[in-house]
């Protein structure tokens, strides 16, 4: 197993591990944006760049930690002038690209980058940093491939084909969850009972609790789950006609556990033991 010496710490990692994996093992922090363990690492945002020391006085090599495969013993510097210079420069460019993102500003603070000298980009380009995580998660994890890249350079956007609402989007919200700068949002429209994935314009109907009217999961997601789990749709609809809260109240009543609704602990107050991620 090759050895990675990083910021003075030494770890052994399996061959073909990435420098980022080695860094995490050694508890060395490297900022990331376009990296996520659930999808392929493209190494496109460049904010994780580190410097591999050259041998015998040769100049070091700048590489992206998230996808550089370790195949032999290497010494990595995260804080070198060159590496820190690139990372900070990249952050400054991104701050001009997504000036309203709080998540990005938080990351900048953590990196020690105070603002950007560059003018903000045009309205149409603003806020998406083109990291590609939404595209990757939709393709690789969800399998819907509802959105993709269109165009080149600064004019490039993430969009559904022909900029219309996607026909394959199931409004699962994975893209919104994975977006590192908070640009993608799931908006619930109470009046129409729909969920909208902004800015991609896709809308899907939501299942509604028959008792209290709460919006639950989107119909296409439910249908997708159905298909994958091989459950009859009607049977599922019957089981899923109540929201978790109402279902719990019914269950309590059916089990004769409480004097009334008041004695039931509201869902929000119950501590949930999260499974290890």
């Amino acid at each position, binding site marked *: 197993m090759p050895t990675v010496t990083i910021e003075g710490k030494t770890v052994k990692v399996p061959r073909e591990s990435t420098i980022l994996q080695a860094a995490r093992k050694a508890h060395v922090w490297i900022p990331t944006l376009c990296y996520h363990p659930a999808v392929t690492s493209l190494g496109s945002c460049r904010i994780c*760049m580190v410097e591999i020391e050259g041998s015998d006085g040769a100049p070091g090599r700048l590489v992206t930690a998230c996808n550089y495969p370790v195949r032999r013993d290497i010494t990595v510097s995260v804080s070198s002038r060159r590496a820190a210079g*690139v990372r900070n420069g990249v952050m400054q*460019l991104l701050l001009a690209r997504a000036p309203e993102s709080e998540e990005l500003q938080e990351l900048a603070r953590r990196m020690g980058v105070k603002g950007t000298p560059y003018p903000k980009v045009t309205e149409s380009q603003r806020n998406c940093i083109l990291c590609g995580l939404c595209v990757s998660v939709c393709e690789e994890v969800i399998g819907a491939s509802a959105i993709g890249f269109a165009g080149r350079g600064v004019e490039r956007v993430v969009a559904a084909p022909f900029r219309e609402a996607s026909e394959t989007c199931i409004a699962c919200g994975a893209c919104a969850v994975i977006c590192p700068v908070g640009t993608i949002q799931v908006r619930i429209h109470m009046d129409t009972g729909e969920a909208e994935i902004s800015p991609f314009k896709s809308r899907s109907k939501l299942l509604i609790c028959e008792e209290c009217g709460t919006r639950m999961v989107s119909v296409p997601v439910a249908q997708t789950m159905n298909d994958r789990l091989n459950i009859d749709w009607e049977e599922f609809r019957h089981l899923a006609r109540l929201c978790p809260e109402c279902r719990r109240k019914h269950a309590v009543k059916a089990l004769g556990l409480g004097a009334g609704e008041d004695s039931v602990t509201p869902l929000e107050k119950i501590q949930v033991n999260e499974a290890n991620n």
Partner: protein
Amino acid sequence: MATATEAAVQKIIHSPKELEAYRKKREKNKKKNTRIVRVCIGTGCAAKGSRRLYELFCEAAGGAEQAGGGNGSNIVIESKHVGCHGLCELGPIVVIDPGEILYHSVEEPDVAEIFRETVLGGRVVERLLYEDPKTKKKVKTPAEIPFYNVQKRIVLEHNGHIDPTSIDDYISVGGYSALAKALGSMEPEGIIEQVEEAGLRGRGGGGFPTARKWRSCRRAESPDGIRYVICNGDEGDPGAFMDRSVMEGNPHGVLEGMVIGAYAVGASQGYIYVRNEYPLAVEHLKRAMEQARKFGFLGQNILDSGFSFDIRINRGGGAFICGESTALMASLEGRTGEPRAKYIHTVESGLNGRPTVLNNVETWANVTAIIGMGSSEFASVGTEGSKGTKVFSLVGKITNTGLVEVPMGITLRRIIEEIGGGVKDGKAFKAVQTGGPSGGCIPADHLDTAVDFDELTRLGSMMGSGGMIVMDEDTCMVNVAKYFLGFLKAESCGKCTPCREGIAQMLAILERISTGEGELEDLDSLETLAELVMEGSLCALGKTAANPIISTLKYFRGEYEEHIRNKHCPARECRGLFIYKIDPESCTGCGICRKNCPVEAISGERKQPHVIDQGICTKCNTCFEKCPFGAIVKV
């Protein structure tokens, strides 16, 4: 045309002996007393109507043959269309054999005279001969023209001599004998050694040692044994047309090199990726491949060696980035041309995840030459670190625009002054730009630099693919940097942050400087951004994107400062940063400028010198274009 018949009748050639026998037979069958008219149909000459000239010569030849020869003897006239001669400035070019009489700027009315005088009568038409600008004497043959006699044409040896659509022509000059030698008497490792001894380095811009690339591919593991060779014909540098001329003018030279290379690395499938904007190159390559298959130089069991290999042509979709190897391979896989990290090299895992060798058109053509002439003869040309020759497209403010091939180590001065005939219109030389958008500008002080990979890089430019753009005193270097950055902004794939955002930010600064809104701090910002883009970008497009800025700042910083401090463009190119004045000595008072000025800024009496009111003038350039006496000057 001869090609259709020959292809229909031809049986497969099974061995080097059969090839030699075929060549000798064609040689013997060549009729004596053949007069040959060679008309260039490279894109440059074709755009000036050379195809029509070719048709007219064919008609004349047909008529003459029917009449039994113009002067009584039985002469055979062969008109052929040939590839680029290189002297594009003076096209259309027509050469008559025997004698290699070269005529330039030929027009349709000249055909009859050339045919009567030279082809039939053996006399020269003086007025169509090239005139040496120094001696003012007319010369007949290319050997007497400095443009040609300073060159060393190895890759372009047959350009202009053979008909690129005739495999017979190619065989008659020794074509496919290198392949026969390779398959008949050499081992793959031996071929790689020859290429190594020859010292061949990639001609696409990277200058990577070719033999090393091949060896890595050969040794790389391929679970199913598949390996690929690719020819990169995506020549995207503006101002560069070397590869186009080779593909159009001698496609078999490229094919032969690819088969040799495939045999050396163990590949059974090859691709040629040709830029979408080169339709003639695609056509000629396709035809050449069909012919090669008919003769058995492509396909199963080539020359009875047991080695099988075939090639497919793909046209690009219109993206400069697809000249980058991983982007090209993505394109061949039906995806967008986005480069990927090269931590794992393409010789290990390339097209479809298999070991792949990708080389430039000119590199493949050199392979043919190396195996043909042997590594020591090839290595006798050039410098220690850069063996062989390089083809350059010499363009811009130069007297002889065209395609040239020179031995590595020749000086820039010789190329520009002797071959190129110096700067056009007697203007002062300012800089020569090499390496396209990835390269830089080299000023007059360094004209005696030897042209080779390492020397050009040392000066802050690079060899690149071979574009060589000459600039004169009227070229604004800020504008040059702006042009290249604008090009790169449109061509950046957008995947990585430094290239995508950095180039746009650099361009925005250049635009402000060129409209008089720059500040001195902008030069520091440019340098900071340049370093960021160079260090942080994913691929070579981004990594070299700042070179046009860095090199112009290095050698012409004064011009940038003039734009900023004085809001003045010293080359008088940036609109709004110079003024128009009427020279009272030259002005005849004709009033054309006054009448055409859209804002009525010019006043003056008839036949009296006119005057431009600077307060009203919008600097639209109309008066400058309209003045018949050149009396308007830019200041």
